[in-house]
């Protein structure tokens, strides 16, 4: 984790985040500073330490396979800006054929 350089362009692409050139510059600077700061966790001895992903004692909490009411088509589509014949519509998705 020594000297880390964020490739903002690559990360923004992964995150599907459109950034202006100006924004890229700002975030590059700020994130370099933040990463420089968080680097100090590196010095913590975590040998034989298990990671914590969930702090609850819950295990095997499941629900029964019984159906509950779904939304109506109208409710489901109420917030959709582009819809047609009950479908949600989006611009063409890239897929060769």
């Amino acid at each position, binding site marked *: 984790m020594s000297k880390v350089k964020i490739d903002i362009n690559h990360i923004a692409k992964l995150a599907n985040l459109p950034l202006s050139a100006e924004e890229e510059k700002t975030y590059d600077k700020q994130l370099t500073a933040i990463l420089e*700061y*968080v680097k100090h966790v590196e010095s913590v001895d*975590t040998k034989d330490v298990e*990671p914590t992903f969930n702090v609850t004692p819950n295990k095997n909490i499941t629900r029964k396979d019984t159906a509950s009411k779904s939304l109506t088509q109208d409710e489901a589509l109420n917030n959709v800006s582009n819809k047609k014949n009950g479908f949600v519509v989006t611009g063409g998705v890239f897929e060769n054929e």
Partner: protein
Amino acid sequence: MSDLTQLTLTETISGLEKKDFSTEELNGAYLTRIKKLNPKLNSYLFVNEESNKIPAAIKDIISVKGMPLTCGSKILEGYIPPYNATVIKKLMANSVSVLGKTNLDEFAMGSSGENSAYEKARNPWDVSKVPGGSSSGSAVAVAADLCAFALGTDTGGSIRQPASLCGVVGLKPSYGRVSRYGAQSMASSLDQIGPITKTVADARLVLNWIEGADGKDNNAVPNPKSQIPNPKSIKGTKIGVPIEYFAKGLDQDVEEVINTALNKLKDLGAETVEVSLPHTQYSVATYYLLMASEVSSNLARYDGIRFGKDRSKFGPEAKRRIILGTFALSAGYFEDYFIKAAKVRTLIKQDFEKAFQKCDVIAGPVSPTVAWNLGEKISDPLTMYLSDIYTLSASLAGIPGLSVPCGFSAGLPVGLQLLGEYMDEETILSVGEIYQSATDWHKQKPGLN
């Protein structure tokens, strides 16, 4: 009848039961006060004129069927949720109605309220100061008597810190005590919904209403310890004072106020013991790595297809955290950042487990300073992050935290933070309630006209 707005939740319920006033009068009084003060304080983003029961202010990250949900972001402009969050269902079953949706830092990301994409909320004690965040509008609504009580969410201090900066009570329950279903996730492993109220007794009541598993939040714990309706005695209660919470960085005046409060607790029969939470210094880094990772994934659903606008509409802090989190999870960095932080989280949790072998509650400041000027830290994200140092560890450990008003510094409120063992809200509520029975800090009101 504007004095109805000064009543605590407990007093309001008793007044309604005794028919001292009607729910129409009650809601009318609040609506009038909101009309007068909201333009100045920007507490509410949406006001429900139809509110007709016990009026609650709900942080606008919690879904209420049929009312706009913005999460403080432009990306959700126009979105109307088709369902109620579990906490809303539970409140409604207890004669509560939603008076309005309150302002917040965009997607609950911020410590000052200034990351809201709308007009920024202001501190009722001094409108040139920040109210704290991210539950800015909810804390302001309670402090300015614009609701009987409010709900906020707390991921790294977002209930406790604005409650402290606005001089009201804020409770972050143990992770898993309250169902998160219906609140937009910020960092799923840390988020909790909790009450912001005028008194600790009110917070106890609201927790009772909203707690419990619902079959919707898979992390809600099915049988948490039961709550008792009244405080237990604090005679002999051991209060741990962590040396790390009184180190460099804590404002001297704030420290003095906190020490006075600790002495008061001793007068009331509690004992104080020194404890140590040695990994506190790593909590900011640990929190920001884990939180940002989860944020980057939780905000991926915003693609403008099923609701809301496109991803360019995220504000600067949201974008910053999405980038940081995406980076921390990306190939080649996951082990060094995410897993490393998850391991340090274990050590932070163990710090508390060790400390609680010596004490019943842990007490200290909520925030290293009182409310600061609007605009003061907004251009320096790292400094802003560091102001959360005393609240983050409890969030990482999943334990409950209560902020109780305990005095003033330079005319601005200071909050005492009480931390309890996992699922032991009972003890911190009792300490807080007994403290309030012997002090008047929570009765102080900001001079608003």
